[in-house]
């Protein structure tokens, strides 16, 4: 009986670990291989602070969590600039260092002997020094940690996190701060793992280096993968299965050495098997919009329709934009002025610099020279998410939709100014966020209505038809609330009939006073939609005029085909 309770305690501890790891790997898509290191920090913090410094509970826990969270945040900072493989190797190195320090810094960690005599927790006068007594505390800790992870992932922040997992540049393009999100999720993941570590130290009264190696990280990873990335209940199930399963092996008598190793072999085999047979894990990821109430067609009276903006004013202007890549001049002395209420086209032969111009105007590329102003305010040099918040947003030629999220979620995540984007608000201002969520839902539905995708609101983006995907790109861009909308080939690949359906949507945007700029290669689209067209070549504008003027100009036509 005591043994079964012990197993349950371990399930709780690993439940916390798997949950913390899932936040990082499953929800944020950040492949970090140092979870056992964070676990170790929490365990050693408690062991060292209680045994060597005599600090009481909960001081040791709080310090351990804070320090570990801080280290997690530090790891995140270089992660902003480096691709997946780099993150793997850097976190792996962190793992190695932690093992080395744990094994070698004898005065601090007791080296291979570890630290013994960690005092048990006390509750209601009882010392929690056996599984029966410890279990309630473990369950409580699991409950709290799970609740924290749940709140985090079911908030607007969580939604943005899942979007970031799908496509980082797209998430920047809808105004989210990547660095903030990565630092936050690393800090939370590391902090929760530290809680598990502290618990572990209190339970076993002993902390030793052998518990925190790479095997341990792989063990936790197996739980996350088995249970299902992106599903918190899955992590609990994964933890339960992988802790309990090897215990069943106890019925087969094996020498202890072989028993331990066999457990690990089973984990490895299970991991591979799950990836082959059911990659989404036992519980696949669930869409959070299933929780959202179905809203009927009429808009809620609480959310006013956006007022149409005045037209004819210059909103976004770029002056003398310059950018080269090594020896190649992409954009040279490019001037552009976009007006509200008008649709501007950007055409030109290949390599003329059109997409580069968009990247420069929206902060995705830095300028070598020149300046960009939005409504008189200098926005040169701002980061993409700040530019979006200022009021200039762009779409991508290759869509970059959040394919695993529903159409509704794709739009909702793009809505600006969400209180729930900041993690502290998620925990300290839940009521305001809930109210905002309802408003967001209505606003998102309104946007979907505008583009004609209402009937597909709850459909996953990857299940939409190509034309519907294109409409969703428009919807997502519109949702940012940006006044200036830059579309990069929004209508390519669509046939005539679909184009005829989408044209009115784009025209309506301009009628409402938005500033629209479109890069297009299909000149029918340009003729149909644009009030004014810039002809780009060799990195700057060669001519500005109406579509008819430009297309019928023999010199320009000649240039187009030069």
């Amino acid at each position: 009986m005591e043994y079964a309770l012990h197993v349950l305690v371990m399930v709780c501890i690993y439940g916390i670990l798997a949950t913390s790891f899932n936040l990082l790997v499953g929800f944020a898509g950040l492949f970090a291989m140092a979870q056992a290191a964070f676990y170790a920090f929490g365990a050693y913090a408690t062991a060292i602070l209680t045994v060597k410094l005599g600090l009481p509970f909960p001081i040791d826990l709080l310090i351990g969590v804070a320090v570990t969270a801080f280290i997690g945040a530090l790891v995140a900072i270089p992660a902003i600039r480096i691709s997946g493989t780099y993150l793997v190797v850097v976190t792996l190195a962190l793992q190695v260092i932690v093992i080395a320090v744990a094994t070698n810094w004898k005065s601090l960690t007791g080296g291979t002997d570890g630290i013994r005599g960690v005092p048990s927790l006390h509750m209601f006068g009882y010392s929690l020094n056996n599984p029966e007594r410890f279990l309630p505390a473990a369950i409580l800790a699991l409950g709290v940690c799970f609740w924290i992870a749940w709140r985090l992932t079911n908030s607007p922040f969580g939604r943005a996190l899942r979007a970031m997992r799908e496509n980082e540049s797209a998430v920047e393009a809808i105004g989210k701060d990547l660095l903030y999100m990565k630092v936050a999720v690393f800090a939370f993941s590391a902090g929760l793992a530290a809680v598990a570590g502290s618990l572990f130290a209190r339970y076993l009264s002993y902390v030793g280096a052998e518990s925190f190696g790479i095997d341990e990280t792989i063990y936790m990873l197996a739980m996350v993968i088995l249970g299902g990335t992106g599903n918190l209940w899955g992590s609990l199930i994964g933890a339960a299965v992988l802790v309990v399963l090897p215990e069943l092996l106890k019925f087969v008598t094996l020498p202890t050495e072989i028993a331990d190793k066999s457990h690990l072999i089973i984990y490895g085999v299970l991991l591979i098997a799950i990836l082959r047979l059911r990659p989404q894990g036992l519980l696949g990821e669930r869409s959070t919009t299933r929780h959202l109430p179905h809203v009927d067609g009429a808009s809620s009276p609480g959310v006013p329709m956006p007022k149409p903006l005045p037209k004819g004013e210059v909103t976004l202007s770029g002056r003398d934009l310059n950018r080269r890549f090594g020896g190649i001049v992409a954009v040279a002395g490019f001037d552009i002025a976009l007006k509200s209420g008008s649709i501007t086209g950007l055409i030109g032969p290949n390599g003329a610099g059109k997409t580069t111009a968009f990247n420069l105007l929206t902060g995705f590329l830095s300028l070598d020279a020149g300046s960009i102003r939005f409504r008189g305010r200098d926005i040169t040099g701002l980061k993409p998410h700040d530019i979006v918040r200022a009021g200039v947003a762009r779409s991508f030629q290759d869509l970059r939709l959040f394919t695993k999220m529903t159409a509704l979620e794709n739009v909702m995540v793009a809505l600006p100014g969400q209180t729930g984007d900041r993690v502290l608000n998620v925990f300290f201002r839940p009521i305001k966020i809930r109210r905002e969520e309802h408003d967001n839902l209505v606003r998102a539905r309104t946007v979907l209505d505008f583009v004609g995708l209402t009937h597909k609101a709850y459909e996953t983006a990857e299940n939409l038809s190509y034309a519907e995907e294109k409409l969703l790109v428009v919807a997502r861009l519109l949702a940012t609330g940006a006044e200036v909308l830059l579309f990069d080939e929004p209508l390519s690949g669509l046939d005539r009939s679909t184009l005829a359906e989408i044209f009115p949507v784009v025209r309506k945007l301009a009628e409402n006073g938005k500033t629209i700029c479109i890069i297009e290669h299909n000149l029918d689209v340009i003729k149909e939609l644009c009030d004014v067209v810039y002809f780009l070549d060799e990195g700057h504008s060669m001519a500005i005029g109406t579509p008819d003027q430009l297309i019928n100009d023999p010199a320009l036509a000649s240039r187009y085909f030069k």
Partner: protein
Amino acid sequence: MDLLAQLFVNGLINGSHYALLGAGFGLIFATTRIVHFAYGPIFTAAAYAAWLAANVLGLPIVAAMLFAALVAAALGTASYQYLYLPFELRQSSSHVALIASLGLFIVLENLIAIVFGTGGRVIDNYQYGIFLVGPVYFSSVQLGQVIAMIVLTASLGAYLARTRHGKAILATTDNPEMARIIGIDTVKVSRLVFAIGSALSAIPATLILLKDGATPSMGFFAVFIAFVAVIVGGVGSLRGAIAGGLALGMVESLGLWKIPTEWQSSIAFIVLFLVVLLRPQGLFGRAMS
């Protein structure tokens, strides 16, 4: 001063070991883009295979090395064919191969532990010579490590540059789509690099067996340091892997001059961190896509 000279030589020796590991791992990584963590336990398996051949069967060391290379090549090719290739055909994301590799890592490492026991295995009665050159001393095994690195990397370089298959490998590493366009079977190329890369690890594995003995967990550090050497030196460059490995060995060893031993592996971390932050493409590499 004498200490410095010794540290320098030690750095060269360890660096050569790391360089060779990096060369093997890097060949696989650059060509197939797979983070083959199981490279570690296959390295370990090679060491144990050499032990079996030398200690149990009584074969001479060189024969044991060749046997180990064959075993490693077989394991490496099998891991591609039966683990990674199915995922590749399914067009799974690269994360999946990495996670699968971790699964294989843990399976192999523990299988070896079960079969051979957790205690270290050494070659009985192996006598090695010690050389004293000025103030510096080193053993014949350590000399072997440096020689092995020079000979094997030179041979690998020549193979890649001069033979038809070698050039096919270089082509696939350079531009996999272009390789397909000219008719190279990239699956065959992948199998080949897994075989060669794994076989390459068998030589340092045998030398470590001679020097320190074989333990089941020796693979983790091997794949870790190989990975770091490749990132520091630059992905896709043999020269880079060598430079990265040597640099790591040198910095680690010279670092010992001032830094206590327990911090040794953190030196690798610091070097890695600096390279990733300041020069992500590594010393010799092209920027990774």
